[in-house]
């Protein structure tokens, strides 16, 4: 019910929205919770486990009960707190976890079974038969218990990630935070003030006191105006700081587009990483409920929430409100209600010595011990020495005291201290380096003390930054002592709720203690207390107090559970913003990409690169037909392939040769200018890291190629060698992978093709195998390397990338003119398998030069990286797997990659394993499948037959072991 008053709602701007299909009206400035209450809607949700009717408990982000689903389809957001959601025109909200409707939920039958559904129920009940858990129990439980559901559709809303930097980050904009921000800002440092609410002021917006002789809310407004006018202050509203991390890094979630008035290009949420040299935590405190029988009926809420609804939103949460507490907040609440003209039916204070001047029925030394009503509160029972009184109330405001919001101070493994005087945990100093807790989150509750602590914390932060500043004059404000007498659970029968969101009662926690789950961490997991989306913000301290009592320990000895980020739920979409799709794996495209795709070639991923699988021609119906043809083009005419994806590293300097000598197992300093050499690189542990060719373009200038996959790894490896291991080399290098477009021209007609294209023709004598040098193509300076990954007479022609596309088109046309064509990865793979050339399929990080038969490349004349480790006895064992070739000789003429090898006739079990197949291709020239494999002691077993079993695909055959070079073992074709 809306009442008169000057709250923070704009009565000139009505806003209509729907809840479960019914249209309601609120005002600009309302949250969904305040607008529903204003419309008399108290039942907002069903509880997680027992489907009990629930209303709103709080007025803030800690809300456990009033969770709703907002929106539809792909942009559906489940579990949105009605206390945080601002209303806007056309907002659609729905209740959750009920069927068929919120008012008539058939699953409420669970509540009748409550005596059987307590703590540990799942663990004890769904034990057997074992198979039933997955098939029966879990699906049924999941359907019966739960929160809101995701849409199942991929997210279409925009989310963003962003970074911010500041000298001082102030977290929270209540009296402490405002004072801290102002003090820091006036000293001239860069300040970020982050506030989770849409309006700055914190509790000042909901309470009725004065600061400096004006209403506190006006002081807040004036202070905010001052801050807004300062260029060194950035105010971030609707921004929850969610975590404190190493090095002054803070995570924060900004709700950018949840209130319906965003521009089209703004995201729904933005996840910030804020790097702050210093931080002031001014997060305030959260009021805690009191556990008593049926303390969860709609209409029962925290006293602080009642004050917020009355003062900030001008909503009377009931016609007759009872107020119950163990501290002065209850009295303040009753006073505010009376001032707003709301009937207070009782004020109950558990402190026997409490007094009041308020004109209300007053019960000192009494407790609320029960409630009545079905879907809304109707009456409360009050127990006192003389007996039990029943008082009519459709709303109960309760205050069990305040817990400092110290969560962030514990995010780096810190633990808080118990402060007996305020019956609450308070932060220990210095738990997050550079962060100072101040005000209510530091256990200081009067407005005057908060203002002082805010200014003091800012001064300490400034001091840490080396900035001198003086304590500002503090505004006058309320300076009352906080008086509390601990009250966690009112004794009595029935279920008294601690954790509203996970339906955990006092009885459950006691049961955990009885079953010896005495550690607070065990109790938490056994009862699920504090494990819901609210992370037990209302219930953790109460639950551990009950546990402490049940186990006969004090609260400090019982301790708290661990506080971990995030402080508020953060959508994965926000945290991962920018990392989806291409943000996760950017595409690297070659210069021939467009023409390749136009040619109908299916593309495959090679790291981040995209490469053609094969180039289908008309009449070809399977990839094998295309692949076989492309292979034969290379073997009989000429083929062209884009090999630009190989890593290219340009190396210059007097010591370039010396560096290569140390990087590669074989010698490079002796390589002649104008020649190319194949090299093998080891890791420090003696295993093969990568291979490739390196060309010497001049005495002090080399260009290295790496495999596509290892380009980055080789680059950082070279940085490590030159910066850390071989420091004094006079050499510089840089990656030029993207700068050059490079194409393989392979086949007996490759020279013929090139000679039609190059400005000056070449011949076999002046350009022998492994020669390199500059050439000219249509006036463009290019590089030519006579190297071969196919075993044929072959060249690689490199031009600056801007000419890549044109060159590819020209090469393709000319190859086709000579009876050949372009070829893709499938053909490239077959060509290299026929020649026994290795890729990372073979050098997978576990292989030594000895394993792949390249022990001869390990120079004895010099040291090289990995040499010492490669000589370790275990790596030279004859029984190690060694590279071999395989030909199928059984009934089945197929080899499959990944299949394992066994001795002929041996059972295919792990103990008998002899090796495995790494690469397979069908050779059209030989009319057979060929395989490369690693076989125990394989080099001595050529001619032997082995059993090949692919358990995954169900393929089995017999293979003959042979030399891994199947074709032209003398290498005559490449030298032709």
């Amino acid at each position: 019910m809306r009442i008169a008053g000057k709250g923070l709602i704009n009565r000139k701007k009505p806003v209509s929205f729907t809840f479960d299909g019914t249209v309601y009206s609120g005002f600009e400035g309302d949250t969904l919770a305040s607008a529903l209450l204003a419309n008399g809607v108290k039942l907002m949700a069903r509880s997680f486990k027992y489907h009990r009717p629930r209303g709103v408990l709080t007025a803030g982000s800690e809300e456990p009960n009033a969770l709703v689903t907002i929106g539809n389809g792909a942009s559906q957001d489940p579990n949105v707190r009605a206390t945080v959601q601002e209303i806007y025109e056309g907002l659609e909200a729905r209740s959750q976890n009920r069927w068929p409707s919120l008012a008539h939920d058939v699953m409420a039958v669970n509540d009748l079974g409550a005596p059987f559904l307590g703590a540990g129920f799942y663990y004890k009940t769904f034990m057997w038969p074992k198979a039933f858990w997955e098939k029966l129990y879990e699906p049924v439980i999941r359907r019966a218990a739960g929160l809101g559901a995701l849409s199942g559709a991929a997210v279409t809303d925009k989310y963003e990630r962003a970074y911010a930097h500041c000298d001082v980050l102030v977290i929270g904009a209540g009296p402490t935070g405002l004072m801290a921000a102002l003090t820091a800002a006036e000293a001239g440092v860069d300040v970020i003030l982050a506030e989770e609410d849409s309006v700055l002021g914190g509790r000042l917006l909901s309470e009725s006191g004065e600061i400096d002789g004006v209403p506190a809310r006006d002081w807040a407004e004036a202070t905010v105006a001052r801050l807004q006018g300062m260029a060194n202050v950035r105010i971030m509203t609707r921004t929850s700081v969610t975590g404190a991390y190493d090095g002054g890094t803070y995570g924060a979630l900004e709700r950018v587009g949840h209130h319906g008035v965003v521009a089209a290009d703004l995201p729904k949420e933005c996840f910030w990483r804020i790097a702050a040299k210093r931080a002031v935590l001014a997060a305030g405190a959260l009021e805690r409920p009191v556990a008593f029988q049926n303390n969860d009926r709609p209409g029962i809420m925290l006293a602080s929430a009642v004050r917020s609804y009355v003062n900030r939103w001008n909503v009377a949460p009931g016609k007759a409100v009872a107020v119950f507490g163990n501290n002065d907040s209850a009295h303040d609440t009753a006073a505010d209600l009376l001032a707003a003209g709301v009937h207070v039916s009782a004020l109950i204070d558990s402190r026997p010595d409490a007094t009041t001047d308020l004109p209300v029925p007053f019960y000192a030394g009494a407790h609320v011990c029960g409630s009545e009503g079905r879907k809304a509160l109707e009456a409360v029972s009050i127990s006192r020495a003389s007996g039990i009184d029943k008082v009519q109330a459709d709303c109960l405001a309760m205050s069990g005291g305040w817990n400092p919001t110290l969560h962030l101070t514990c995010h780096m493994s810190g633990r808080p201290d118990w402060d007996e005087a305020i019956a609450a945990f308070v932060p220990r100093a210095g738990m997050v380096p550079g962060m100072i807790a101040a005000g209510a989150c530091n256990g200081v509750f009067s407005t005057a003390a908060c203002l002082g602590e805010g200014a003091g914390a800012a001064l300490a932060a400034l001091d840490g930054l080396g900035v001198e500043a003086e304590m500002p004059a503090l505004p006058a404000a309320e300076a009352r002592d906080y008086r509390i007498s601990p009250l966690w659970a009112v004794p009595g029968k029935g279920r008294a709720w601690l954790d509203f969101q996970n339906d955990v009662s006092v009885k459950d926690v006691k049961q955990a203690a009885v079953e010896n789950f005495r550690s607070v961490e065990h109790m938490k997991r056994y009862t699920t207390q504090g494990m819901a989306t609210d992370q037990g913000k209302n219930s953790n301290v109460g639950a551990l107090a009950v546990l402490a009592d049940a186990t006969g320990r004090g609260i400090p000895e019982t301790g708290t559970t661990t506080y971990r980020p995030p402080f508020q739920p953060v959508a994965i979409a926000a945290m991962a913003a920018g990392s989806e799709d291409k943000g996760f794996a950017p595409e690297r495209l070659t210069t021939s990409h467009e023409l390749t795709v136009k040619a109908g070639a299916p593309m495959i991923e090679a790291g981040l690169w995209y490469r053609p699988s094969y180039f289908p021609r008309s009449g070809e119906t399977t990839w094998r037909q295309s692949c076989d043809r492309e292979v034969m083009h290379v073997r009989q005419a000429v083929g062209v392939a884009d090999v630009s994806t190989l890593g290219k590293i340009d190396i210059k300097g007097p010591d370039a040769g010396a560096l290569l000598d140390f990087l590669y197992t074989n010698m490079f300093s002796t390589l002649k200018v104008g020649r190319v050499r194949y090299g093998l690189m080891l890791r420090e542990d003696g295993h093969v890291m990568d291979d490739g060719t390196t060309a010497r373009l001049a005495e002090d200038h080399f260009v290295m190629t790496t495999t596509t996959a290892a380009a980055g790894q080789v680059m950082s490896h070279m940085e490590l060698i030159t910066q850390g291991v071989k420091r004094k080399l006079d050499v510089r290098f840089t990656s030029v992978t993207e700068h050059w477009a490079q194409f393989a021209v392979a086949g007996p007609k490759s020279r013929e093709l090139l000679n039609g294209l190059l400005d000056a023709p070449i011949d076999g004598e002046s350009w022998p195998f492994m020669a390199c040098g500059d050439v000219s193509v249509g006036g463009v300076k290019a590089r030519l390397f006579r190297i071969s990954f196919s075993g044929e007479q072959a060249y690689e022609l490199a031009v600056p990338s801007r000419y890549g596309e044109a060159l590819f088109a020209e090469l393709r046309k000319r190859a086709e003119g000579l009876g050949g064509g372009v070829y893709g990865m499938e053909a490239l793979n077959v060509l290299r398998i026929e020649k026994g050339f290795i890729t990372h399929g073979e050098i997978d990080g576990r292989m030594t030069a000895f394993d792949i038969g390249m022990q001869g490349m390990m120079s004895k004349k010099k040291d090289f990286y990995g040499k010492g480790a490669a000589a370790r006895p275990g790596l030279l064992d004859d029984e190690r797997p060694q590279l071999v070739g395989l030909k199928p000789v059984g009934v089945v003429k197929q080899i499959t990659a990944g299949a394992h090898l066994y001795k002929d006739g041996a059972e295919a079990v792990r103990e008998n394993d002899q090796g495995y197949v790494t690469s397979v291709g069908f050779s059209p020239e030989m009319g057979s499948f060929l395989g490369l494999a690693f076989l125990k002691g394989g080099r001595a077993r050529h001619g032997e037959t082995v059993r090949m079993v692919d358990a995954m695909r169900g393929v089995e055959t017999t293979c003959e072991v042979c030399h891994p070079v199947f074709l032209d073992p003398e290498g005559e074709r490449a030298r032709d």
Partner: protein
Amino acid sequence: MRIACPLCGERDLREFTYKGAALALAYPSEAASAQEWDDYLHNRDNPAGPTRELWYHGSGCTSWLVVTRNTVTHEILAVELAENAEEASA
């Protein structure tokens, strides 16, 4: 976490990759014994306290850095270029 790169200044953790103990810089000589190789390749201290480790500023200046970090508090005590670090063998 933030690392103050001597060349680039204080930068976010995401620009760096971790390799392991700075010991990797102390590459043994060719004639080193099997035990020395074992110590270099495999044997590592696991201190609760300051430790020297190698980080690569791959999204920045491509420097290899030796970062002295307290494993208990995650506090970064020192950052230097690997080329100035004491571990290096040559």
